Every structure is written in C-alpha cells, then in structure tokens.
C-alpha cells in the first residue's frame, strides 16, 4: 500500500515546558466566584447588622430566646456565665445549624457542580487531553472547595473582628469563637467532600449541585427534627452539626467531646476518597 506522505521539511520540535501552577484549582475558584461571593457578602451584612442592632438586643431576654426552637438550631440552650451578647447573636446568626444549611448549601452546590459542569459543557475533554491526570483534576477541585470554605470562614472571622473594632460593646471571647470556627471548618470539609463525590458521579452541573445541596438540607432537617423530640432523636446523629455544634461552643463557652469532630472528618475523607476512586474509573459521558 502506498500513501503520499511528504517527508518533513522542518521537524516539529515538540512542546516547550512552562510552569503551570494549579490551573484547575484557580479555574474552579473562578467558576465558583459568584456563589462564594454571595456567601461572603451575606456574612458581612449579617455581621454588621448584629453589631448595629446590638443596643436593641440588650433589652431582650436572651436566655429565654435560647430555649425552644432556637435551642434546636444551636444544639443546646446553655449560656455561659460571661458570654458577651455580641458573641451570642453572632453564634445565632452565623454559627447555628442554619449556617450549615445556608453556607453549607452554597458550598455543596459549588462542589457538586464543579466536575459535572465541566463534563456537561465538554471542557473536561480538553482538560483531560492535557497532561493532567484525573486524580490531579479531582484533588485540585477538592482543594479549591476547601479554599472556598476557608474564604467563607475568614470572611466570618474578619467581619467579627471588624465589628469588635467598630461597634461599642461588641466583644468576643476569641478562644471560643475560634473553636467554633474549627467546628464549622470540619462541617464544611464534610460538605465539600460530599459535593465532590456527587460531582464525580454525575454529568450534569446543575443536577449535581442540586443533589449535593439536598444532602445538606437533609442534614439540616436531621438536626432540627432530631433535637425537637425524643422519638426522632436518632436523626441528630445523621447530621454533622451534632458532632461539631459550633454555635453551642460560643454560647455555652464549652467545648465538650472534641473527639466527636473526628466523625465528620473521617466521613469527609471517606466520601472524598470514594469520589476520587470512582472518578478515576468512570467513563466521562
């Protein structure tokens, strides 16, 4: 058989290497910027509102407020003997289980859509046709979501710090506040990992984001119904907030059973690694 292949006149030299950094990570953060920006904006507004309304809050009976349904949201009704009022309201507005629903939901959607969106629009084919392994792609997206969590937490802490500088009587006991942030970090780690697992198994961005968000909603409902009565108390063990009750740490100024944090950490690792294993084996269709 013959062909008319022409001999090369000037050979192609082949690709010339360049530093590439973490292109998938930066691209993922860029794609999630709207969601993360909205979450951070909400935190900023709520934090500043709490600071502004602090004088009005002083007239309320906070201990009474912390009982009943609010107790379910924060995982307990105990109030520390010297807990600052500003810290209590910050805990209620930004660190209760509703925080997990709101910001966990945002993060879950971003993580859930992160891979599936690229499969849906076809750009993952171009990415994987480059010298980027599936493991690297997955891990960079995972780290991007963890960075997203860090950005949310940093905004929260920064907002609280600014409030303490700007508003009179806006004081915090930083030890408990930071420990509460550690609790939230653990929850967001679990959320990001779960989102990545969902994303690794699906091929439609919005659907994957929606499924991941629904999981967070389920966890939130587990917390609220699980603490509402004895018959459903088993439900609270299914949600991560039971293991990392961030608002309770601030209001009660207690950090009991820190080993419980290992549960969501381990669950997050298992879900994240399961997603990685599945993503490496699957067909991108």
């Amino acid at each position: 058989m013959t062909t008319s292949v022409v001999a090369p006149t000037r050979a192609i030299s082949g690709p010339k290497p360049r530093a590439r950094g973490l292109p998938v990570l930066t691209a993922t953060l860029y794609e999630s910027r709207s969601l993360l920006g909205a979450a951070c904006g909400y935190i900023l507004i709520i934090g500043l509102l709490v600071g502004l309304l602090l004088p009005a809050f002083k007239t309320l009976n906070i201990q009474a407020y912390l009982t009943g349904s609010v107790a379910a949201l924060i995982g307990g009704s105990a109030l520390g003997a010297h807990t600052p009022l500003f810290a209590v309201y910050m805990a209620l507005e930004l660190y209760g289980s509703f925080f997990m629903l709101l910001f966990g939901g945002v993060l879950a959607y971003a993580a859930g859509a992160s891979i599936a969106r690229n499969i849906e629009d076809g750009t993952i084919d171009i990415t994987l046709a480059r010298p980027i392994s599936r493991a690297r792609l997955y891990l960079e997206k995972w780290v991007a979501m963890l960075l997203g969590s860090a950005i949310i937490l940093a905004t929260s802490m920064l907002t609280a710090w600014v409030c303490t500088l700007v508003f009179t009587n806006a004081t915090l006991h930083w030890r408990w506040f930071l420990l509460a942030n550690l609790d939230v970090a653990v929850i967001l780690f679990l959320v990001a990992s779960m989102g990545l697992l969902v994303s690794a198994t699906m091929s439609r961005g919005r659907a994957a984001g929606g499924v991941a968000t629904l999981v967070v909603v389920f966890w939130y409902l587990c917390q609220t119904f699980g603490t509402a009565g004895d018959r459903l108390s088993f439900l609270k063990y299914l949600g991560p907030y039971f293991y990392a009750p961030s608002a309770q740490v601030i209001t009660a100024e207690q950090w009991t059973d820190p080993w419980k944090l290992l549960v969501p950490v381990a669950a997050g690792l298992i879900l994240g690694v399961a997603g990685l294993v599945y993503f490496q084996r699957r067909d991108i269709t």
Partner: protein
Amino acid sequence: MKAVGAAGVVVDVAHLVKTYPGKPPVRAVRDISFQVERGEIFGFLGPNGAGKTTTIRCLLDVLRPSAGKITIFGLDARRDALAIHRRVGYLPGDVRLPGDLTAKQFLNRYSRLAGSEPVLLGSLLERFEIPLNRKLRGFSKGMRQMLLIIQAFMCEPELAILDEPTGGLDPLGQRSFNEFLLGEARRGLTVFTSSHILGEVERTCHRVAVIREGELVAVESIERLRERAGQLVLVEFADDVPEAELRSIPGVQAVERQKNGSYHVKLAGSIDPVIKALARHTISRLEVEEAPLEEVFLKFYAGDDKNDREAHLGAEGDGPA
C-alpha cells in the same frame, strides 16, 4: 523529535471495543483496528452515530475501552496517558466554551494546563484572526471554532486529534485551515481527524478509515480510493463508433451516449486499454477527469459495499508503505 512506535507508527488501535452499559448495552465501537503513521493526515469518516467521537475519546483516555489496546507514540494510551498528552493537541467536536472568559484568558488557561509554552500562538493568530480581549460569549460559531483550533495547535503538538475541525468555519476559514494542516503535516505533524466534509477529506488526507455502526468498513489511501472511484472519460468521435465496442474495453464500467453523439465512459483501473482502443478511431474531443470520491464514501456510508468491504480492509494490511 522524540521516538515514536515501531516503523513510525504514531497511533496503533488494535481490536478496540467500546460498549456503553444500558438495557440493551450500546456497542458503539466493535473490534476496530488501524494505524496512523508519523506525518500522515488520517481521516476518520462515518455517518452520525457511527462511533467516530467514541473512538477519539478512547484515544484520549476520556472513555475506557471495553476491550482492545490503544498505543500512541509506542506508549499505552491509558497507563502512559500523561506522557502522551504532553505531545498531543486536541480539538473537540462538541464543547460549550466558558462565556465569561476572554479568548486570551481561555488560551492562557489551556496553555497552563498543557504545561507548555504556546510557541505557535503568534503564527496561529495571524492565520486565524480572533479578538483576544473579547469575552467568549460574544464569539460567533466560526470564531469559537478558530479559538479551538488555536488551542489545539498553539503548544506545537506532535499529534493532533481533531473532531470535526472545520465545523462552523466559512469556506475561507476552511481553506486556510486545510493549508495550515498540510503545512504542519509536511513539518512532521501527525493528524487524526474526523470529518463530514468529504471534499476536504479528499484534499487533505493521505489515508482514510470509514466507520459505520461501530465497525470499520474501509481503511484506504486516498490514491486507492481514487482508483476505485475510477475516471470519467468524455469522448467524441469523428466517425460512428458503436456503444458495444466501448463496453467491451477492459475496465469500462458504464457507457452513456449523449444527445450530441459523444460518450461518457465510467472507467475503473488503468486508462491504458481505453486509450489504445480509442486510438483505432478518429477522435474529435477527449476529456478525462477523476470521478469524485464522494460516491465511494457515500457507498460506504450507506452500506452498499458488502462485496468490496473485505477487499478494502484487506488492502490496508499493516498501514502505508
């Protein structure tokens, strides 16, 4: 230039099978084998749903073959995917570009992902003019295709895998791309391209494979296909020549008498017996032209090739000489 596989084979697909799970399972690719040589432009043709894109995505390890082996540059397409992908440029057939990026940001992103300098970017931008600072959501279909062409070639790959590369390009753009492709092939670039534009395939490809319903029905050089397509001879005699005489010439497939008395003769194989036979008469006009390949392709597409199919695949042997 880095080493390639044995005998200059860049792409070696052996007994590739890809079945999508489902009820019933979809057998998208069924035991296909072919090779692509270095510096060759290899066309991969077939009707919609024939298995072209599935094959391409298996080459890139985006899809995992159900059976068979793919070797690129002598390396295993799955195990050594990263080493292979350093040397490959890919142009997808169906992709939705991120509209919030500018062309410049998009090219920079994919150059970074490649870990390679976009050394050909300047020359590609001269050939395929696109507004670098405009958001991609404002790009026309043709501009998006040019951008994808640029990203596929900017890092100077040794192998280009192209899925419908000229879709959306205007005729000028298509011609410019074909010229570019032929030039790069002369420099040693190997090209594996799927296409629906048969004329373009005829002009640019050295060899083609035709896939239909997941099965390879032909792997042929363009020359061989041209031979199969035959030639069209228009002949006008000064004297009266009976049609039966023309039909009796070896290699003549069909004879059609025109109103003006001239003949259209469809010829397969060598023209020599025809010339010798015609020389016995006084000829007032003679034109010879190659029959368009389109008919051959369409015959494969439509499945009217059962008699010839074995011969087409058998003729492939171990690839081009």
